[in-house]
């Protein structure tokens, strides 16, 4: 039987974490994501599944707790918001370098600096291009509903363990705080069936000792390690996810993810009602990015517009995919302000529909 609930996006992530059989959550309070740990603490997951939830002294500590536990093969996660995620970048780089699976949730707020607590998508670059030091990538999932907030927890761990790589759910205060109906996933056992040969749980006589490290003082070895990582990131393309809305006959295309995609869905609806052939491509994974799909669509549409709550970050990836075939524009609000469907529609009319 379906188990339905009315929940905030942040609460859905917490509930889904318990149900996904997560072993440990380590976090630090920050608006607008504090509900994640609050919900977890209230639920007594140590009684429900044996899951450990610990409030750390800082985001720096929480990401390093994740690093330690992930090295033992456990399913572990943290969540934070933009300034906290910035603090975690060193740890995330170590986790990527040491090839450890884990889940990180960024409920983005407007920046830079302390910025605002209102929703934003200005952390796109940080999330998809590495974020910390060194050549590395995270698997980046972009939920656009409370349902996807819940679903992407398990998906994030599945991909993280498949590639031994950190996965990031990139969302914002809008989806995190919004209440929607959500179908809760079934309770999973707290067991891991993936390859455990590399984990550190104590050296037994039947194997060599295991070492979790991102250190390689010999440049040749570090070079080889980097090539291996790049190969892995390339392979992630097979797990690209996106949704096409009214794309089949579209003459103009909006590209948007997360909360901005929800707004753009309305834009498409209004435009279609007026007989305008507008479509929406919604990336569900931002890394890997739906480059091939966008490139194919660029052969038959007249133009594209990346609609983001930022000064124009994803638009760069759209332009790389389109590679000059058609004009690519950006439209977006900054610093915690949200565009209305009418704002976007007026920009669409200005850029695309002037000749109608």
């Amino acid at each position, binding site marked *: 039987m379906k188990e339905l609930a009315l929940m905030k996006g942040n609460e859905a992530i917490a509930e889904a974490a318990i149900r996904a059989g997560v072993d*440990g959550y380590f976090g630090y309070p920050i608006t607008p994501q504090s509900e994640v740990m609050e919900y977890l603490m209230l639920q007594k997951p140590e009684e429900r599944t044996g899951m450990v939830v610990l409030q750390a002294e800082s985001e720096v500590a929480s990401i390093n707790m994740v690093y*330690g536990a992930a090295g033992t093969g456990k399913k572990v996660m943290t969540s934070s918001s933009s300034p906290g995620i910035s603090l975690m970048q060193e740890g995330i780089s170590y986790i990527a370098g040491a090839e450890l699976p884990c889940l990180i949730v960024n409920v983005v707020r407007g920046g830079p600096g302390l910025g605002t607590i209102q929703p934003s998508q200005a952390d796109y670059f940080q999330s998809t291009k590495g974020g910390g030091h060194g050549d590395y990538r995270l698997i980046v999932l972009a939920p656009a509903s409370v349902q996807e907030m819940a679903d992407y927890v398990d998906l994030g761990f599945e991909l993280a363990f498949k590639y031994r790589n950190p996965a990031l759910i990139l969302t914002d205060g809008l989806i995190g705080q919004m209440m929607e109906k959500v179908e809760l996933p079934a309770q999973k056992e707290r067991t891991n069936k993936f390859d455990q040969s590399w984990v550190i749980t104590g050296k037994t006589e039947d194997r060599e000792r295991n070492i979790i490290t991102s250190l390689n003082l010999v440049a040749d070895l570090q070079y080889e390690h980097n090539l291996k990582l790049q190969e892995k990131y390339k392979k992630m393309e097979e797990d690209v996810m996106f949704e096409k809305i009214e794309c089949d006959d579209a003459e103009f295309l909006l590209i948007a993810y997360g909360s901005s995609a929800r707004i753009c869905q309305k834009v498409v609806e209004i435009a279609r009602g007026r007989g305008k052939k507008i479509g929406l491509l919604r990336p569900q994974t931002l890394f890997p990015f739906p480059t091939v799909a966008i490139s194919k669509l660029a052969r038959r549409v007249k133009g594209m517009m990346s609609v983001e709550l930022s000064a124009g970050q994803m638009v760069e990836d759209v332009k790389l995919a389109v590679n000059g075939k058609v004009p690519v524009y950006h439209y977006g609000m900054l610093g915690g302000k949200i565009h209305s469907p009418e704002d976007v529609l007026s920009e669409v009319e200005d850029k695309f529909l002037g000749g109608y």
Partner: protein
Amino acid sequence: MDIKEIIRPDNLVYKRTPLLTDATLSYCPGCGHGTIHRLIMEVVEEMGIQSETIGIAPVGCSVLAYEFMDIDMSQAAHGRAPAVATGIKRLWEDKFVFTYQGDGDLAAIGTGETIHACNRGENITIFFVNNGIYGMTGGQMAPTTLEGMKSSTSPYGRNNKTMGPPIKITEMIAPLPGVHYVTRQAVHKPGPVRKSKKAIRKAFEVQKEKKGLSFIEFVSNCNSGWKMTPNDSNIWMEEHMFPFYPMGDIKVDGKLVK
């Protein structure tokens, strides 16, 4: 008597623990790290807990400790070992988890993680090697560098007024309720080596009995960083380091030693 008659298995009174690997130590000749490594591995061997022990080696001279200790280990970012150890121990309550940290790591960049892991009473063991200098990066001033002591970033000697005085972090964490056992030891002579080994054994026993955090500071030399011969550095350590960082137990069975 011929030498071959003396070197026989039945005459063996001491041998290197098999829990130290064959890798050549990367430490400078004369440095105390090698001895501390050996003592920890001897205790792990004697307690028969190799398959249950996980070590953490953060940034510093001992960043490559996992090359020498034949146990499962995790490298850690600079200063973050107590957080990494917390993450492991919380999910593996029955494993033995220890960190092996230098003074810069534990008492400067990792102060927050150190204090909070101690305050939560994480059931782990912290080995803290204090040689009053950043050895790995070439002899810069550490949080524990003595007043007037020269280093590459205090070339005219540490000035307490402008650089702050050396920090006694071991005395700072000792009163915290979660901390069960705190002691300060050295490994420059056979006597102190024997005492250090007893302390290491006690620390692991405390962890086994789940009594809380155990913390051992080893005041050690850095002959390269101090620019002395190994012997001179040990004499200098006794004359200057020991008065400021006095040897002995600071907290036993959860009670401060007066």
